[in-house]
């Protein structure tokens, strides 16, 4: 089954972002999204460590004071600003960030997210994930649809420790775009060359499949 690369998942996430919104990108795959937005859309990226308006990972000389929340050097857009962590999380927790894009370990049929603690490793790091999951106005989870062992990351109930309950709005994976609502999961798009049946089979929770599911535009 042909699955999207990490870069193509990031591209598909970028297509989900509306112009002139404020977007926070989590560490890992979500960080790649900054490279795929159209600058004309004037999307402002927010970083938990206190930046509004960074423009993706930088090629410039490394400045230790100019990094995103994952520690990567970044460039700025004109009109960027810096602020302390208290202001940054007032922004996040207070509902001022339009969209957060986070990685995921598991997402449940109710939109519960688990993305910070790996039981097999006996640990993890929470960072700003819990605040983003609770505070962002829209939460997109970008992740591989199944684990390396083939188990679905989309499950009836998370068995990993939660990041937050009922917080996910959209799941974008290497196989599909899935909307999450109070009624459960609905398939919205398929990856090129992947059938709805294959997606249902790879999904560990009930998945509504409307007629005429379009293929992703990439």
């Amino acid at each position, binding site marked *: 089954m042909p699955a999207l690369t990490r870069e193509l998942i990031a591209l598909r996430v970028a297509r989900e972002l509306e112009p*002139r*919104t*404020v977007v926070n990108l989590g560490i890992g795959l979500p960080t790649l999204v900054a490279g795929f937005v159209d600058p004309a859309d*004037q*999307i*402002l990226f*927010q970083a938990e460590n206190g930046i*509004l*308006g960074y423009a993706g990972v930088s090629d410039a000389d490394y400045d230790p004071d100019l990094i995103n929340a994952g520690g990567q050097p970044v460039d*700025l*857009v*004109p*009109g*960027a*600003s*810096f*602020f302390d962590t208290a*202001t940054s*999380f*007032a*922004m996040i*927790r*207070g*509902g*001022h*960030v*339009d969209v957060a894009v986070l990685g995921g370990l598991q997402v449940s049929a109710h*939109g519960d997210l688990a993305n910070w603690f790996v039981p097999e490793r006996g640990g993890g790091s929470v960072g700003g994930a819990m605040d983003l999951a*609770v*505070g962002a*106005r*829209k939460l997109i989870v970008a992740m591989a649809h199944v684990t390396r062992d083939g188990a679905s990351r989309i499950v009836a109930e998370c068995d990993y420790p939660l990041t937050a309950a*009922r*917080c*996910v*709005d959209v799941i974008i994976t290497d196989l599909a775009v899935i909307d*999450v*609502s*109070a009624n459960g999961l609905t398939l919205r798009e398929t990856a090129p060359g992947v059938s709805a049946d294959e997606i249902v089979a790879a999904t560990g929770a009930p998945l509504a499949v409307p007629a005429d599911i379009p293929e992703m535009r990439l």
Partner: protein
Amino acid sequence: MPRRLCRQRCAVPVIARYDPRMVAQVFATPDAAVAGIGDGATVMVGGFISAGSPSNLIRALVRSGPTGLTAVANNIGLGDLLDELCEHRQLARVIATFAIRASGGRTSRFEQQYRAGEVELELVPQGTLIERIRAGGAGLGGVLTRTGLGTIVAEDKRIIEIDGEQWLLERPLRADVALLKASRADTLGNLEYRLAGINFNPVMATAADLVIAEVEEIVEAGEITPERVGTPAVFVDRIVACPPIPVRWEG
């Protein structure tokens, strides 16, 4: 999935359609900038006496004429432009720290209407007022403070005991609209403050559904030093440049 958190709306939604935009809209006049503030709105007003006070926006609100307003501000009194909202009895309720002069003498229109029972007043200690607004803007459920314990400020409020110590629970405050004053804005809506003009403005910017700022000058994005941005653009919806109205307070 409907967000459980997100912006907690006020009971009376007054902006018919609020289009959330990262890029602030620039308005030509204060009157245009305050358009759409309807009867019954809760309006936060930045500033501390004469410093950082959005005098042009207050006067525009007087001219536009909505009534039944709740004003949230540090002060309302003699020589304070907010008092002009009392001329046409636009205020139903005021939440403030300074409102009634402790000494006698001339009284403000607000004080006259308050004594006549025409307007309600909730006096809030200054440090509690700013924390309540901050909680409203930062998605926090309340404030736990010692300020006001054992005084009439604590009447009818919940006391939370933690490890044998008592804390007064004060509730978050939000508004439909915030009227702010800054020194400069850029075209994205970033605000830069000057001297003691900061005061309540940056925190009020976080706690209203519609944030309108008057500034002395609007510059291109990138012209304000990133570390000098006092209110990041995400919090600001409308900006208008106009000469400040200097005001001398009479307490």
